[in-house]
């Protein structure tokens, strides 16, 4: 049961808590079901080692394979730029949180409201608080996190899993998207 506790011990959520992504297919299904998903990448994605790469590299792959627009928070955009990715939107995390609560907001691309917000790479507690805001105030949108820590306020989250499992899952998710 430990694995599906909040990663930061004390960040207990209330009665409504995230479902665990027990296998990559779950995440893929969500992504594929979404009409207008968005991937929100925090600055830690560029700091966390995954294999020989950084977490952000896998997220980029995911976004490209899944045709998911990216919004970089913090100073993430700089890392995206470094990697030659130029279409990234830039927006602070709290701003995105606020915008997503507005069901009429058409997204950074102005197309249509996002229906799935995928978070990754934000500081745990900040992602926790923002997902809390969305849980309560954005019933029209599904949320998912791809960090390897359990985020109780998301709709779907990994449990607290090892880096090894994480990497495997991420790879599988990316792979499945191709199919």
């Amino acid at each position, binding site marked *: 049961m430990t694995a599906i506790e909040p990663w*930061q011990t004390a960040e207990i959520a209330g009665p409504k808590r995230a479902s665990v992504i027990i296998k990559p297919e779950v995440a893929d299904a969500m992504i594929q079901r979404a009409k207008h998903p968005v991937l929100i990448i925090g600055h830690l994605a560029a700091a966390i080692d995954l294999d020989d790469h950084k977490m952000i590299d896998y997220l980029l792959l995911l976004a490209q394979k899944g045709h998911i627009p990216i919004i970089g928070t913090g100073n993430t955009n700089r890392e995206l730029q470094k990697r030659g990715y130029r279409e990234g939107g830039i927006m602070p995390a*709290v701003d995105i949180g606020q915008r997503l609560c507005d069901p009429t907001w058409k997204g950074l691309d102005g197309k249509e409201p996002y229906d799935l917000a995928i978070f990754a790479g934000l500081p745990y507690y900040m992602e926790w608080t923002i997902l809390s805001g969305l849980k309560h105030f954005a019933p029209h949108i599904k949320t998912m996190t791809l960090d390897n820590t359990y985020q109780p306020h998301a709709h779907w989250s990994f449990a607290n899993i090892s880096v090894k499992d994480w990497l495997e899952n991420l790879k599988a998710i990316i792979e499945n998207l191709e199919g």
Partner: protein
Amino acid sequence: MLSIYTTLNPGVERLTGKGINIRFKELQSDIGFIKDLELSIGKLSEERWSEPQGPTPFPSIIALRNWDRQLLKRYPPFYLPFCDLCCLCTYGKCDLTGTKRGACGITIGAQQSRMVLLATCIGAATHVSHAHELVECAIRKYGAGFPLDPGGLAVEVEAPVIRLVCGIKPEKLGDLEGVLEYLESQVTCLLSSVHTGQEGDNLDLESKVLHAGMIDQVGMEVADIAQISAFGYPKADPDAPLVDLGMATVDTTKPVILIIGHNVPPAISIVDYLAAHRLTDEVTVTGICCTAIDVTRYTANAKIIGPISWQLRYIRSGIPDVIVVDEQCIRTDALYEAEKIHAPFIATSEKNCMGLPNRTQDPADAIVRDLVSGKMPGVLILDPAKVGEVTVRVAREVAPERRKVGSLLSTKEIIELARNCTQCKQCRRACPNDLHIPESMKAATKGNTTMASDMYEVCVGCGRCEQACPQNIPIHTIIISAASRTMGEEKFRCRTGRGAIQDVEIRKVGGPLVLGEIPGVVAFVGCANYPKGGKEVAEMCVEFAKRRYIVCTSGCSAISIGMYRDEEGKTPYEQYPGSFDAGGIVNVGSCVANAHIAGAAIKIASIFARRNLRGNYEEIADYVYNRVGAVGVAWGAMSQKAAAIASGFWRLGIPVVVGPHGTKYRRMLLGRADRDEDWYVHDRRTGNEVYVGPVPEHLFFSAETKEEAMVMIAKLCMRPNDTGKGRAIKLTHYIDLHKRLLGTIPDDIYRYVRTMTDVPITEKEEITRQLHAHDWVENTIPDPTLLLWQIKKQEQ
């Protein structure tokens, strides 16, 4: 309101605070018999202060509700519920998830605002009660007639916040008591609103938060002008002395006293006792947190050790021989930590008795004996004078024996202890900053303590890792021991708190600031709950000073800024002047000195723009909001006081940026740049509604990283009133920082360009492209206001 008519025991009919009026129907007293005496004393102060009274002197908790609503309409709360439940009464706990209401009918949003109100009430109560203690102490020493003089000759507008809020002009210590009465009644009334079944509207709760913030600001001003006046601190002095900062500045061959907290009288009494007994050079006085700053305002001999987060590490270093705590921001386990290093402990505040026996009435000899012998690990002494004597005597007696025994560990011991680690990760999961402790333990077992020592800078010294470790590994001690070299190099210089801003400084910068030519005032304030160490604050500070913003600072942030050196080995305070001017770094002082930063903004309206201050809050806030490009940055904001301080800035129209931990304050106040309809102002001259763009975009914003914060700070300095030249300068900084830190030219410049003169030359081409892409049309620069009655005023 009590402060309006204070009626006392028989005889005194009525006594009003402003325009005092005393009537006696009949009075038989020692000195004779008086019948129908009426004294109207108000005239006296009127004569000396010709400024007409504004509409809201001593405002009630909703007197400024309309103004608050204006702000909250632009910046509605974005809630980040920190708990899905409410546990405030025995109907609870209540599940407030989503749209569920609690047993009292409250919603999750209102509950968050209510918790914020509770926090700001606690914060305001803390400053007000601190102010009360200082005023009382000063009056006891110098009498109520002692003149207030926070600025010497350089300051004419002496208590801008009190004048603005209360509509009175305090001249003596005693004048502050009426202000305190008002503040205490407001705190009580606001707190009452938190009760189950009271205010349930989230925006009304937020309006009350803003009121609490304003009350807090007045409280801080009362506290600081009282202590400046009474203790002879630097008076609005840009050249306030540079003082020692850092553990390595302490001469460990001497007895060392450590003072922690905020309420300076006990510390001052220690300094006085040393001076009176010619012991100043024999005993070192060191401090942590605001008392540290304030004692250096009293004597440049004292040393600042570090911000709040330095408590555990400094105590465990074993350097302090006696620990004296006063009030606020003191670790509740300080006594326990003191015992571990055999340092006698003295508590000095009714508000923080720590379970210690009250020895106030006992002779100093007896107390000293009991502390030195270890018969008592600590005592409570509520008389500052006695604290002075006891502390110094105990320090001198115990120091030789103690020989600075601390808890630091040798590398061998570290390796030994680290071996007990089972890699269970409980420590990391308990660490607020998710530090890689298990990994560093693993490395340590192999003799590599670099990972451990690297954590020193980013560790906030909370000790939660140790609490969580099932193996009882003294993790924090390991970190600081591994970093003992770094600790040994903590030797800096900090400019002590200068207090208020001079009128002449305001006169000089008022124009450039309001026109936008000085790009802004950036104030780094608040606690040390940093996501990645204090260095980030220093770096931000230097960046904006370099860019010739006016940089202000106070409290723990001011200390963190001093703990940083540039390539030449100079601290920011050594490199930048202390003047309130472009490129200055202005340490106003301890937390309560924050009032001077607000005061400076207010004084710009008064001195530069000649707006009336007196009881005229709404107009002045509107002025500041639309014209003074000031931003508060509380990068490590942690406490309820910080919440209150921020709220005080908001009501005055000054946005505040906090670090990522700031999302735990339960809600942000964010504007919607993309909603054009939100960004219209009235033109005071014409009465027209003019689109001015999202300036400032946010009122309360939590940044994920330093880089994001810096870009946002630059952006938040823009104001509707900027001239073309001013706007171009501000945009240049914004664009430049955005490019450097986020890798691109911002895509929202078009929102901030009103006329082509706004466009910075450097990026003209790209910007012009943006303008075209967004069907930009030229607009006018209005004389901006949110207040309808400001236009009417013009029309008349």
